[in-house]
């Protein structure tokens, strides 16, 4: 059962922002409602007005950022399903399509949006974790104009963002990896949302031999861990341990990098597990993600399968 509310369906961002500004705390932005309606059923949120963002022009679009012609912009009201099925996303950011296929269940993917996922800032967000490795920035619109923020500054903590109450999330823009990048996304969980998520991307260069196209040296490593700290985080110490290594040496180095990642998270005891357990799992799963990415760098697909684990 939901408490009564008034539904507004603006067609422009200006109109929507004016509504949010005018109604203040009484209003909530509403996209798919897959999170919002749950919060309202529980009485945790009691908005008297919902401002539907799905009819706002441009919010449902996926395209290349006009300025760079290279970065990929996904409108806030694009559903997970549309991301999964977009040929442009598959061409520019293939791992984003494969991860979209594994968000939640098909009913939530059909209705839930990218903007709703990021604006809700659940610490168990697959998108926020993966997007950190794609230098994501979000566009915020308000009666004062438009601003762009790195995703890491937008998500401040569990269910907390730097969005002002009259601001709308308009879109998220991703920077596709260079072509010689091998990557993997691994998530583990027995509940609906993941218990742990790891994104790893290794950019290769050099001519030492073993890799695809003869490229073997890791010139840049990106590792993000989601679900265990207050928000998804890039693991700088782990990344530093991987940079300049040869893919052939990765098996040994993966352990050191995984330990560095485990030392870099800030887990808490909760229903998903104890802090110690989570820290241990971070080491295990960062290692797995790196080994799968390394196999892909060699043009192979790792055959390893793990219980309750999705490999994208």
């Amino acid at each position, binding site marked *: 059962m939901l408490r009564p509310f008034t539904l507004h369906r603006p067609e422009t961002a200006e109109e929507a922002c004016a509504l949010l500004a005018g109604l203040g705390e009484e209003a909530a932005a509403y996209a798919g409602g897959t999170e919002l309606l749950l919060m309202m059923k529980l009485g945790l949120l009691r908005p008297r007005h919902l401002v539907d963002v799905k009819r706002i022009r441009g919010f449902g679009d996926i395209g290349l950022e006009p300025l760079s012609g290279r970065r990929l912009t996904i409108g806030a009201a694009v559903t997970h399903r549309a991301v999964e099925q977009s040929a442009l996303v598959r061409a520019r950011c293939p791992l984003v399509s494969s991860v979209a296929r594994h968000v939640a*269940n098909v009913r939530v993917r059909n209705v839930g949006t990218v903007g709703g996922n990021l604006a809700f800032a659940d610490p168990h967000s697959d998108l926020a974790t993966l997007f950190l490795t794609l230098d994501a920035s979000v566009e915020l619109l308000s009666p004062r104009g438009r601003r762009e923020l790195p995703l890491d500054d937008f998500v401040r903590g569990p269910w907390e963002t730097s969005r002002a109450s009259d601001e709308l999330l308009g879109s998220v823009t991703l920077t596709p990896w260079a072509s010689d990048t091998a990557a993997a996304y691994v998530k583990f969980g027995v509940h609906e949302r993941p218990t742990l998520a790891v994104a790893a991307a290794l950019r290769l260069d050099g001519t030492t031999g073993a890799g695809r196209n003869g490229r073997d040296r890791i010139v840049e490593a990106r590792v993000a861990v989601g679900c265990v700290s207050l928000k998804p985080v890039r693991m700088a110490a782990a990344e530093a341990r991987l940079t300049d290594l040869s893919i052939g040496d990765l098996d040994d180095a993966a352990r050191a990098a995984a330990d560095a990642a485990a030392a870099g998270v800030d887990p808490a005891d909760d229903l998903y597990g104890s802090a110690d357990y989570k820290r241990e799992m971070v080491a295990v799963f960062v290692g797995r993600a790196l080994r799968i990415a390394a196999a892909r760098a060699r043009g192979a697909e790792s055959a390893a399968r793990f219980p309750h684990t999705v490999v994208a």
Partner: protein
Amino acid sequence: MTIRLVVNGRPRDLEVAPHALLLDVLRDTLDLKGAKRSCDTQVCGACTVLVDGLAVSACTYLAVEADGRSVLTVEGLADGESLHPLQRAFVEAGAVQCGFCTSGMLLTAKAMLAENRTPTRDDVLHYLRGSLCRCTGYRKIVDAVLAAAETAR
């Protein structure tokens, strides 16, 4: 708000409140009891219906969103007395025990087969993730979906 939609092939004009959930409108206004409320949190799939062919959780979906769209519930699957091939496959495989999950399973499977006529066992398992059954252990449900896909070919 007035909404105009098609339910199981039949056009309907309905007066609904903005906060009315599609599941309640289907069950209480239209007396279609096939979709069930169980978890009420989009986890179990018992309330699954198809909106323009897409599976949604009617328990967490505003009825006004169905305006201008076509809704299919399990009551619309059979053609008169003649069961839909998926229904027949469920019966033949013994994929129905208490039946509480069955309408959601059937509709989810229908949406999958519309996208993918030649699913593998893994495809079926992937698509049915989030459709929970307490009785069957899933094997016979998956068998039934694969058998229906086979028959349709």
